[in-house]
């Protein structure tokens, strides 16, 4: 399946783009992360410490165990600093 993958803040800067389409059969976010890390060093660097990252699936905050079945959009970003 094809998933829109979005990056924000320093994750976006480290990977070097805000958004890309990714072809994947990963069953969970965690497996998708492993596929991305295997691509290039900049991905490996961005995802080196998952405890420093948050993930949203279809615009809902979730965790790295979340299933990807039927999902259209996955976003990775650092802890939020609103307010």
């Amino acid at each position: 399946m094809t998933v829109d993958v979005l990056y924000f803040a320093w994750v976006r800067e480290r990977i070097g783009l805000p958004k890309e389409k990714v072809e994947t059969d990963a069953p969970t976010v965690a497996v998708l992360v492993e596929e991305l890390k295997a691509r290039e060093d900049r991905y490996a660097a961005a995802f080196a410490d998952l405890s420093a990252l948050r993930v949203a699936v279809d615009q809902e905050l979730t965790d790295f165990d979340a299933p990807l079945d039927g999902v259209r959009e996955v976003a990775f970003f650092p802890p939020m600093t609103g307010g």
Partner: protein
Amino acid sequence: MAVRVQSDSFDPGAELTAFAHGRRDAGAVVTFSGLVRDTAARDLEAMEIEHYPAMTERAIAGIEAEAVARWSLTDSLVIHRHGRLAPGEIIMMVATAAPHRADAFAAAEFLMDYLKSRAPFWKKEITRAGESWVAAKDEDEQALDRWRDGA
């Protein structure tokens, strides 16, 4: 209940005037206004706020709905800006109206605690020395704990 996410500036005073106007049912109105604070070195040139447009309004509306469910509120308002802001500029505002002050205060603090750590905004400080992303604070994450067992 209202949510506005915008790059344009706004006047928190004008918002408070409109929000409080003509309420006979709410004795208490609380506002929080967040301003761009200068760095300790007083060298801040700008703050840049990035957000996740598809998610932002929905996330804030969800937080507001939870506040309305938990406290006896007559109304609430959240405005949050994104883009490039100068020191002293308004970043965001929360307003709550309630019959009693305890509800208005608690709901405003709850909204702020959740917006800080659960609304998809990221702040970057641009100083003469360079740029850096504002790190999330442990105390902001801990602030959420007080709402977990019923306030």
